[in-house]
């Protein structure tokens, strides 16, 4: 996975986990509210992305977190150090792309 560019769905999942460990259902809802998340339809597709990210060492499973309001059996996922690096790198790359696109479109307009 490292040698390829990050698919939008994987990026969205990493972004969803940036704030801290989360259960699958929360990742799902988070991702679905951002546009690229449309590639993640439901539990099955989410599972595959999580599995790929885990195999690439970008996220890890954490033990169940007995917090209020969340089913105790729900296992959570968190970013590894590598995952955080990839997320930051990808975010910077996207920012550069966006900035470039802005500059160019302004030039075209003027």
């Amino acid at each position: 996975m490292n040698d390829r560019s990050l698919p939008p769905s994987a990026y969205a999942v990493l972004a969803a986990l940036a704030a801290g460990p989360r259960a699958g259902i929360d990742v799902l809802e988070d991702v679905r509210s951002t546009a690229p998340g449309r590639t993640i339809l439901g539990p099955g597709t989410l599972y595959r992305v999580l599995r790929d990210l885990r195999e690439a060492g970008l996220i890890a499973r954490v033990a169940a977190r007995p917090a209020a309001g969340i089913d105790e059996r729900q296992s959570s996922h968190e970013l590894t150090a590598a995952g955080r690096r990839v997320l930051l790198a990808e975010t910077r790359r996207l920012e550069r792309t966006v900035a470039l696109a802005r500059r160019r479109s302004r030039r075209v307009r003027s």
Partner: protein
Amino acid sequence: MSGSRAVRWYGRLLRLLPRSFREEAGAELVETFAAAHVRASRRGRFAVWSLWARAVADLVVTARAERRQREPFVSSRERRTMTERLRLWTADLRSAARHLRSKPGSALLAAGTLALGLAAALSAFVLVRDILLEPLPFPGPERLVRLREQNDGEGQRRFWPSFPTCADWEARATSFTALGCASIPEPTVVFLDSRGVMADVARGTAGLFRALGVQPVAGRLFSANEHRAGGPAVAVVRRGFWQNELGERPFETITLAIGAERVPIAGVLPDDFRFLGDASDWSRADVWMPLERETNLGGRQSHGYHTVGRLRPGIDLVTAEHEMAELAAVLKAEHGEPTNADRAELRPLTGVVLRRAEQPVRLLGWAAAAVLLVAVINFAATLFARGVARRHELSVRLSLGARRGDVARLHVAEALVLAVPAALAGLLGAAAAIRAMTAMYPGILPRFGQVRFDAPAAGLGILLGLGSATVAACLPALLLSARSVAGHLAARGDAGAPGHRYVWNLSLAAQAGAALVLLVASGLLVQSFRAALQVDVGYRADDVLTVAVVLPESRYPSADDRRAFILDALGRLEELPSAVAVSMTNVLPHVTQAMISGTYPAGDQAAFVFAGHRVVTPDFFPLLGIPIQPGAETLRPGSVYVDMSLGRRFWADRSPLGQSIGGGFAGRGTTVSGVVGSVREWNHDMGAIGTVYYDYRQTAFDLDSGFLLVRHRGDVERAEREIRQALSAVAPDLPIEVASLDRQMRDSLADRRAVLQLVSAFSVIGLVIASAGIYALVAFSVGRRLREAAIRKAVGAQPSQVALTMVRAGVGPAIAGVAMGLVAWIPASDVLRALLFEVAPFDPVILAAAAVVLIAASVVASAVPARRAATVEPVVLLRD
């Protein structure tokens, strides 16, 4: 759905996924889904539905992705390019065609049955589209409503509006952008130069033409000056009438003589301009004139005008009905006359026009759907059987690395190779069927003449053909590509793969069930038709000729002239050698709908019912064999006969003789001097309607149209010739229409007969397809069980026993199908109920007969191939 049930269902859906993935991830997926379901149900039902939709899509996508990732061969993991796919498809189509050529018999049978099913479905589709769905030929037809007066009294009876009421509505109602009324088209003799032509003449108000939005194809419609009381005479004519009857002369130069008036033509109307006619059918007038200029349009209780309005945008039926009720109250207070209009009943014009067509066309649609169902099941079963025969080849393909999809594609390719010619044949069949139907049954249903097989219908046919083929191919594709490779190769099963037997047992049963439903429907219609023919109509129509007489005012200006003509004609007809009896009537006996008025026992106007009023000569009763009850006196001026049903209705057990009756021509009260048998309209389920009879000779009736009746002896043609000669001597320039009464009565059953024949045709097609299906599958199964048959015979079984075993394979499922069909008939009978006449939808005799026919067909269809099994030579077969 409760949370735990939803989770259970989701768990079942997980079977869509490959097993290894399911075992690895299943628990986690269920967990996530359960949590999502809890949240969604908090947000409401929509959120839950959308969750389900996403979850199913998600599983499908995941299953595909996982499968692709786990394919055993490197080559198949890469996605195929378009050209590669195209190449594979061509190869498969070729292989399918080759395979079909090797067994052309069953291929032809399958394609033929599919073509039949498609033809039936397509022709029914065209009927439904062109009769029921096609909008009326007016701009914005959905805003057109038909209005009737509604009475708040007992029964809330509804009436065609009277002219004064309609005129008030036209002037005052605000819910409509336009509203107007029209008279029923009347057959009239119209003179062009000195040649008389029969034409249907209708009259309409200014609002009518505006509401319908009709535009003349040439010339103009009427001006405001022509649409007023006492305005000048003017007419517009229908294009076809102008072309055929008026010689297409420049219409500005034509002046017609209609009645006593000379009428110039202002314009030409399109041929498809139609409006409501007698009995609210969809009729077409040849000549239209302004209505307002007529004198003698009747008072507030002379109901006889079809009224139509165009709803203002933003106003719905309820709002408009509300306004009309208020308006009716205001009008009633203002004019202070007796009226039946306490409010107005509004109905969409489309519904009014299609009322008579809806039930039969819908029935045809369902019948065709059943035929298509039988055909598709049959097709699927045939494909399945062919697939089973290729099982060995397919196993080899699978073991050599073919994917499940590759094998499925083979099945779809085979289905397509069969379906394309079938679809084309179905198209041709449907086009021919539509042509035949419109030629055989012209005008039986509203808009039947407008039914066309066109390009969109052909497109639909092709789609339907390919669609049915794909659906049918799913069965073998799913069942035959999933089997394990080793299983296939190990079991060179001869016994027709027991695991598959349920598939064709089920398909045979389903075909038999659908065919049974069709058979029952057509059986019931046949019985209804026979019942309708056997109805005792109360008179004898055989050997009776009718002569339609229309007396134009221009030739017979006064009432005395018209009377003299009719009496003269009667006298001359009586002298004919072939005439047994002669009479006349204003309305023929099988047409009770015309000349109906409110009729009541004198002094009790509130107890009125609608009854027919007939002007006849006393010979009318013996001529038609209508019995006269004992005690009757001869008809005198100021006395009438009533029929038994009306007498019973008004005076129950008392004798009607000497009672007084009011309404219609009877005015406020006329003495009843005789009671006669009731006459019943043939094609009418409402039974006999009461009738009051008047003597034409004794009273001063002024009839300008009517019918002369002649009961003749001997040859019909000679009688007709004599009648024509006698009448043309009296009136050389009048068109004379002679027809047999018997024939006219039979024609009144034409729509019933047409529906009966069409549904019967569908049920015969269904039966043929189902029998062909049974034959093909039993033949196939016998082919696969020949070894078994040979072994049985070798160990001493009689040929008859062997045959019986094989026959059972076909008849057993057919019997199960009959049972399924009977159950399916319970809901299906609803479609037919309204079309039945004096027969119950669950008539045991007809149900039993249909079951027997179907089982007999299955016995015959199985016996033919079973003979092959019985005559097999064990030595020959076992040696191979």
